[in-house]
């Protein structure tokens, strides 16, 4: 921890670089800034899952459910859908349903945390493999519900999804339009990027502080040996619930931001593949190690774009069978198998404390 304090010039340069990045990249194309913004959302998701998997050692294969909860929550609270579906609401909210950002973030976090706690309650006593499958089941259940809750009452609009979602706005400044300062135009995606970057920074600080605290140590004890943790008097059930809820809250906030950014949500965005990808980010990057998790998230988020460049050639080579999406799936699958065999702690794992050189049992 002392080392961090001495390295602050590096952080400053890094921070400036990250802040100015989109402005530099803007000229090449707004598409790239969009990718950066989405990457930030994935980093948020990975950080959240890291609390569950990396700190507490619980394999959650349905993390995308919390992402969906946050996204749909914001979509319902900031789009015309509910007004159009329910007459009574239309009368109470003649100007439509809009939710300001300072309400959205805590609400999304809270709702997702609640979902996490409810989900966790029955299942956290299960052993690793069972927990994984059950959480996978929950993820699928949520998706099926999102896909089908359109009759008898239309809540989620089924597979069509919800659109016309309000963009984010901060102090009256709407993110849907570019910001013009003097003669300089800052694209709307850049504003989103900065907002997400800010959320990521806050999240990293929160995660770091949790990791180096009594709570973090308890989580890691549970991960190392749950029985021994119990023998230390730790109420492991409550601690696991806490990890679940905290991780879920990150997912919820990320989801709400996603809904605002995209302007549209549908059940397709919340598939099992997404959950697996987030798990892959944490595992490949370095479970329980913040820099590793961020690296994993950035790598896998950027992967589709990188692949687009080389996919063209491969597509020609294989007669059109392998496109960018398939290639990405292939690479993720092989990476998951490969990393477990070759570098099970991830690409950038926690630096181990020194060895005392004794014979380890």
């Amino acid at each position: 921890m002392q080392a961090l304090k001495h390295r602050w010039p590096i952080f400053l340069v890094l921070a400036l670089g990250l802040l100015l990045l989109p402005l530099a990249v803007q000229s090449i194309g707004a598409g790239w800034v969009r990718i950066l913004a989405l990457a930030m959302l994935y980093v948020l998701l990975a950080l959240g899952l890291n609390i569950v998997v990396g700190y507490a050692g619980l394999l959650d294969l349905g993390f995308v459910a919390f992402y969906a909860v946050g996204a749909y929550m914001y979509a319902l609270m900031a789009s015309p859908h509910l007004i159009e579906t329910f007459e009574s609401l239309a009368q109470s909210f003649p100007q439509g349903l809009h939710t300001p950002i300072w309400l959205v973030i805590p609400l999304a976090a809270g709702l997702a945390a609640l979902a996490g706690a409810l989900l966790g309650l029955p299942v956290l006593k299960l052993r690793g493999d069972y927990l994984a499958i059950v959480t996978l089941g929950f993820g699928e259940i949520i998706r099926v519900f999102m896909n089908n809750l359109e009759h008898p009452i239309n809540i989620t609009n089924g597979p069509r999804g919800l659109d016309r979602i309000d963009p984010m706005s901060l102090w009256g400044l709407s993110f849907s339009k570019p910001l013009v300062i003097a003669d300089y135009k800052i694209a709307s995606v850049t504003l989103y990027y900065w907002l997400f970057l800010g959320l990521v920074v806050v999240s990293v600080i929160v995660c770091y502080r949790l990791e180096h605290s009594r709570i973090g140590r308890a989580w890691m004890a549970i991960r190392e040996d749950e029985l021994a943790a119990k023998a230390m008097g730790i109420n492991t059930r409550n601690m696991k619930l806490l990890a679940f809820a905290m991780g879920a809250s990150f997912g919820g906030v990320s989801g709400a931001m996603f809904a605002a950014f995209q302007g549209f949500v549908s059940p397709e965005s919340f598939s099992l593949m997404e959950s697996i990808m987030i798990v892959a980010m944490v595992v490949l990057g370095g479970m329980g190690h913040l820099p590793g998790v961020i690296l994993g998230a950035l790598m896998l988020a950027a992967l589709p774009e990188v692949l687009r460049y080389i996919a063209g050639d491969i597509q020609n080579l294989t007669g059109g069978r392998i496109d960018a999406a398939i290639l990405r799936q292939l690479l993720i699958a092989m990476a998951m198998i490969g990393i477990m065999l070759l570098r099970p702690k991830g690409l950038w794992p926690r630096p181990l404390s020194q060895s005392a050189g004794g014979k380890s049992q």
Partner: protein
Amino acid sequence: MDIFLQQVINGLVLGSMYALVALGYTMVYGIVNLINFAHGEVLMVGAMVAFTVVSLLGDSGLPGWVLLLIAMPVAMLVCAALNFAIEKLAYRPLRTAPRLAPLITAMGVSLLLQTVAMVIWKPNPKPFPQLLPVDPIDLGGPVITITQMLILLVTAIVLVILMILVNKTRLGRAMRATAESPRVAALMGVNPDRVISATFVIGAALAAVAGIMWAANYGTVQHAMGFLPGLKAFTAAVLGGIGNLPGAVLGALLLGLVEAIGAGYLGDLTGGVLGSHYADIFAFVALILVLTLRPSGLLGERVADRA
């Protein structure tokens, strides 16, 4: 009443196919304490290989049932070899690793198999030719097709063979011993690696049969076809008591019945609120209920979660 009986038949047929896959899950779990996430994909591979064989021989003029007879051992062989390789390359090195590791690997293998299948056979669903006469046989109300009868018959035969294998042969004894206590079994001269490989191979063969039956029954094959049946078969194995072979069959038949009957009546029961597309999550709900309320399953021993 006829509808009910019809659903019972459908349920038993569905349950038989689940049983074949569930047995693979439960055997592997009993021996290496691993949920082989990729097992559902073995079903898919079996179906796809059979599809290829049948397509290649389609113009040979051979009758449908002969094609089926040829396709089955080919598919079983391919799946057995595949599972053998997967166990040896991906799971064996991780036997002493923390429990998270083989889970992640299994997920990776599952994804890999699906993606490779997508590449080889292209993503769109393919029709599996009707190899057996289609006309259903009237049982005095409900009907049953020859394919469905075959499924029930084949499953029964396979189960008998498996029971003989597990209870009367040396390999079966070795498998049971290793499942009880690997160390003691090793001390008795049982080679755990061989037993584990054999378990994976047998499980794969069963799944291959299930895959072919599935393809024949539903008439289509596709790279993603193994995911849901795999998950449901796993639920069935847990329902019956993981590690318990008769339990897996019982759980599978029960699950098949619930799914068939439930899907038929769900709409009526809930006044149209929940349609039959919710049928897919039955298995998940059942799994969560079983694991929360009776984790040992119907026939299994108490799963001690301590330590």
